């Protein structure tokens, strides 16, 4: 179980160094940027008329990268605005507000978290609400080794978030607040496409 791995990790302070390295690597990669890929080539042309081609959708609705960001860190007055702020300018618009919110959750006592991130560094990562996804290996929100390389259906993203917000430098602070003790979905996922369980 991802959660069990996570929990056991949290007890081990010695793993901190590894985690710090991981997240700094992630941040580093984000900062460096990447070589532009080759131009996309269209694959095939449907001879039949397509009912939606050229249709314009210009009224913004919702926008989500990572789970829980808008609901946890965005104040009531900003909630609609956050959904219509494009990710490339989110950091500048929201990092400071997120930092204020993070300290409010912790009674002003937040120092660093399990990833070794200061309040400004952690909220700097969070404020740009984009989900990082690896195309070369394991995809997970956090599995004790990899961090933010994707999000699987079974990832316990709430516990990860609670640990990083409330758990302090070791992840061991405020244990009553760092897990909701719901570590899996109410229905098993499918091994094959479309992976999600049938509806209730």
């Amino acid at each position: 179980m991802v959660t069990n791995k996570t929990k056991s990790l949290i007890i081990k302070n010695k793993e901190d160094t590894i985690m710090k390295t991981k997240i700094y690597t992630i941040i580093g990669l984000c900062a460096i940027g990447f070589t532009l890929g080759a131009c996309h080539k269209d694959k095939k042309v449907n001879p039949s008329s397509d009912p939606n081609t050229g249709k314009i959708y210009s009224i913004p609705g919702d926008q989500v990268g990572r789970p829980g960001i808008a609901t946890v860190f965005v104040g009531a007055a900003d909630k609609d605005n956050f959904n219509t702020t494009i990710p490339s300018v989110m950091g500048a618009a929201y990092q400071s507000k997120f930092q204020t919110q993070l300290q409010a959750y912790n009674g002003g006592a937040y120092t660093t978290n399990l990833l070794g991130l200061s309040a400004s560094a952690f909220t700097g990562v969070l404020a740009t609400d984009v989900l990082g996804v690896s195309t070369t290996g394991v995809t997970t929100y956090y599995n004790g080794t990899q961090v933010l390389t994707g999000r699987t259906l079974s990832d316990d993203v709430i516990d990860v978030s609670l640990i990083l917000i409330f758990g302090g430098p070791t992840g061991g602070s405020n244990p009553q607040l760092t897990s909701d003790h719901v570590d899996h979905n109410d229905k098993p996922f499918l091994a094959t496409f479309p992976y999600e369980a049938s509806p209730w």
Partner: protein
Amino acid sequence: MKKTKLIIAAAATVIALGGGILWASDHADAPNVKGKSTDITDLYVFQAPNTNNLVFVGNVQGLLTPTATQTAAFDENTLIEFKIDNTGDNVEDLVIQCAYKDGKMYIYGPVKPTSTGLSSTVVGTASVVVPVTPYSASTPITATSANGITAFAGPRDDPFFFDLDQFHKITGGTATGFTNPGHDTFAGTNVMSVVVEVPKSLLNSTGKLGVWLQTKQNH
């Protein structure tokens, strides 16, 4: 006492936010989308069992009871769009667009968008078209394009899990922590889901993508 301080701080935060924090994932997150076809609940992106592929899951219209799910539908006026950044600048280089029409979900791309940002134009013709799986279906309806894109659209169990009720008690000051075991507030609820499995070779990636999900309307 630190614990007390924390709770007070959390409670104060709730008040500051205007009387109610709803920490779901992104369920009902903002006034302009709550209860609408544009309301996103979650984004998932993960490597498929066939490790040459990546799976994109976009879920909308959360907290559907089984009864509500019977009549739940996608909206022809709402585009569900995965944005994909290849270069680390948080600007989309590719999009996967999902447009519903007459009982079918049309999936476009991955393709370079005609413009970036909040307004989108459907690009080209659909890569794959899949009939929406009805609530009553015993097996999901899927479709696969010649270039290996597989799609599904329809109601699914909400894969999100969280003891939201206990969290509300904590932030409301009537509890000091979670219980063990907790209770999944999202148990027994459904979402409307679009799942698109894409060969990584179509994503122009050099190893890492930035992905976000948007909804937007035509009028």
